[in-house]
């Protein structure tokens, strides 16, 4: 394999402690489930936050994801990685939320494209912040299916097989969708300068 970006498996860190907690939680041990929540809450929250671009909403949804996970825990099978399974629930919850949001309010995409962070500081630091802000804006302009696959790959580091499992698509489709998502993002964002292509 040639390339730079490591494909760190999502459940590479599923240690024996987690396996024990999972077994106890499946037997109805709420405290063990709490330990599992602690292990995965940051990741689920981060993904939801970037999908929805709303902190409070993401926080509420993170709780909902874990409640759903608790209720569905008897259906979970050890063949499916727990963290991947959680991200699958989170992804479905995020898409539902985005659908609801479209019904409730209309948010024009062009709104607020200016960089919000104009705090004074060293030029390089400012440029870096500007680039980050532009990337976040550009991400929000993408279709949800492109945004989710980019976040799961680039931020969460899921391998192609895990992406296929979370998104419910074939690995071949993962490859093509990822390429399309990157192309779409590059239409809105220049990764070298951080400039947005309007």
């Amino acid at each position, binding site marked *: 394999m040639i390339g730079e970006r490591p*494909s760190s498996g999502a459940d590479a860190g599923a240690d024996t402690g987690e396996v024990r907690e999972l077994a106890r939680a499946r037997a109805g041990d709420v405290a063990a489930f709490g330990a599992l929540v602690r292990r995965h809450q940051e990741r689920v929250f981060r993904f939801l936050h970037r999908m929805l671009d709303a902190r409070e909403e993401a*926080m509420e949804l993170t709780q909902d994801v874990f409640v759903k996970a608790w209720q569905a825990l008897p259906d979970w099978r050890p063949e499916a990685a727990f963290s991947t399974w959680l991200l699958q629930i989170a992804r479905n919850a995020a898409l539902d939320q985005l659908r609801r949001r479209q019904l409730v309010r209309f948010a024009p995409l062009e709104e607020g494209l200016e960089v919000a962070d104009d705090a004074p500081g060293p030029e390089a630091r400012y440029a870096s912040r500007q680039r*980050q802000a532009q990337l976040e804006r550009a991400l929000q302009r993408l279709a949800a299916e492109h945004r989710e696959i980019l976040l799961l790959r680039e931020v969460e580091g899921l391998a192609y097989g895990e992406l296929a499992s979370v998104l419910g698509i074939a690995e071949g489709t993962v490859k093509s969708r990822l390429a399309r998502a990157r*192309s779409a*993002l590059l239409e809105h964002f220049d*990764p070298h300068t951080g400039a947005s292509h309007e």
Partner: protein
Amino acid sequence: MNSSCPTGSCAPGPCPPDEALSALVDAALPSEAGAGLLAHCAGCPRCTRRLAELRALGDAFAALPAIRLEVDLAAQLVDRLQAGAPAAARKRGQGPWWVRWMDRIRPPTPWRFAFSPFAGSVAAVGLGLWLGGMLMELEEPLSPLAANTTLAAMSVFGSVPPGNLCPRAGACGASGNAR
């Protein structure tokens, strides 16, 4: 990127599609295919630029500021699960077959019950009993006068159709109805 490279500046062969370059960035290509792509890019400014863009995109993601939850959701959730949702994981899917069957058909919340088939059945039976009760209450004993009126009214509809012969003498009245 499906078009060929500009004449004179290309490595041999057509430019690879974006999908291949994207997979190369993810280290998701077999070694030989990856090496071939890199060799092509070395002689193709256009593909080199595209590959650099894709890699820079990865770097831009890596540079995104960390998002922290800053709240221990676990503590809140454990309280919530212990208080409100009694161990769904334990209750459902365990126990003898009839308990599991009851679990499946029992509506877990009042709201779900309101929209369940049970609610419809209960409402239908209740409505039937109520209407039946009302009819029973209306059915009072008839007075002799009322009974005569009823009989007279009923005699309009005789057992012998109009124009038919009486089955025996005296069986029909003046109206031709059977007595």
